[in-house]
């Protein structure tokens, strides 16, 4: 109870901010939504068009600027909340889970609306969304309702009263906003997350990149990393040995996590260190996959 009280004092400052300011912080906590900017081709901020390679084909990120015609400018609060927490577009169609609503579903509604306030404060960019390049049956969106029945569960993140306030904050950040599991957990043949291998790394991360094991396993995970190591890494992209973050991980650090408070980064580290330790050497996984 005392811990919750202290955390309340800490979060009081955040609550004093405007919805747009809070939304910007949440935007950073989500990794800066970097998939929605086509950085490699000089695309406009959040205007989409970035190709995201998946084992099923290429999916292009969408324009989430407040442009009324090509972006999300006409979306109501309810539309935005439904998209984020249920993966359903305003026209009723299902989103592909490359948009990580499977994690964002855990967000608190107020946080979702603050995020919308921030996105709606951005310059509107007129840019049509690009059609995905997926072969049937993956191009049939109705198939996604079946996928959801298998792999998606709605519901806001629930705090664990037996854990500290810092742990709970870290759990919320990792599981909901930062959506770490989406890249760092291997997937089943049908693209669902392998629950018993949560955070144990994947050779089929976004854009074909490896996403390493971030469980506390000392040989294949981050078990040798201290809490300050993790915080420093999320602030600078520099690993304990001085090497640097690669690929998409660097993008989400640069666009997102490095802007978080030291307290929140410490909370993330606390939660990650409490995960089940799973031995999973990605090299072996890749050899098996090949």
């Amino acid at each position: 109870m005392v811990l919750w009280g202290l955390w309340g004092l800490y979060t009081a400052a955040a609550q004093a901010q405007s919805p747009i300011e809070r939304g910007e912080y949440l935007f950073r906590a989500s990794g800066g939504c970097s998939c929605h900017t086509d950085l490699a081709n000089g695309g406009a901020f959040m205007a989409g068009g970035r190709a995201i390679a998946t084992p099923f084909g290429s999916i292009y990120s969408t324009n989430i600027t407040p442009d009324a015609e090509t972006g999300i400018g006409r979306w109501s609060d309810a539309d935005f909340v439904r998209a984020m927490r249920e993966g359903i577009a305003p026209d009723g169609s299902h989103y592909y889970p490359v948009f990580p609503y499977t994690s964002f579903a855990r967000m608190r509604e107020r946080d979702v609306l603050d995020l919308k306030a921030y996105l709606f404060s951005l310059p509107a960019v007129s840019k049509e969304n690009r059609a995905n390049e997926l072969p049937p049956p993956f191009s049939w969106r109705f198939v996604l309702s079946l996928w959801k029945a298998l792999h998606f569960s709605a519901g806001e993140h629930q705090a664990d009263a037996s854990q500290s306030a810092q742990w709970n904050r870290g759990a919320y950040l990792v599981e909901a906003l930062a959506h770490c599991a989406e890249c760092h957990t291997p997937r089943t043949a049908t693209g669902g997350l392998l629950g018993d291998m949560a955070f144990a790394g994947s050779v089929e991360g976004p854009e074909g990149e490896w996403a390493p094991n971030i469980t506390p396993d000392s040989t294949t995970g981050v078990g040798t990393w201290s809490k300050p190591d993790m915080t420093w890494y999320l602030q600078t992209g520099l690993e304990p040995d001085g090497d640097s973050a690669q690929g998409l991980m660097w993008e989400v650090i640069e666009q997102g996590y490095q802007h978080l408070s030291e307290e929140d980064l410490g909370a993330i580290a606390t939660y990650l260190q409490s995960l089940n330790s799973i031995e999973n050497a990605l090299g072996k996984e890749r050899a098996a996959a090949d």
Partner: protein
Amino acid sequence: MSIQKTVKFLLCCALFTSAAVWAEDEQSGEGRIEYREKVMKVLAAQSGAVGDILKYKLSYGGDILVHAKGLQAASKLVMPSFKAKAMKDGGGARAEIWEKWEEYVAAAKVLEDATNELVVAAEKGDMKAVGAAMRAVGGSCGNCHRPFRNKHDHHDH
């Protein structure tokens, strides 16, 4: 031939032979990759040392300037160490370094600029500025590695 002339002749031969061997090594690239890797390790070690002082709040704050200057000096070796193309199977360097040389040089320059800023911050003893400069150093590493380095197969993050 006098002894003096003989010595001069032998010295010239030795110099010529050394130059020829040197040129051959330069052409084959032997040792070049190993050298580059050492330059990178120096950078990693110096930035790792600054990181340790900051993240653990160690009482070596005054030493940050030494490491910052080390980083600054090593950063200037990065671009020259890649001038001649040398790659190996499973190595880190991608062909794009030489195919897009101007872009690579620009990326390497960002690192140099970031380490210059780090030295300025360290000279002032401004730890907040040092932290910000280290974020820029980390950023310059990531921004160069993404287009120009193969993802390594070991436990990478």
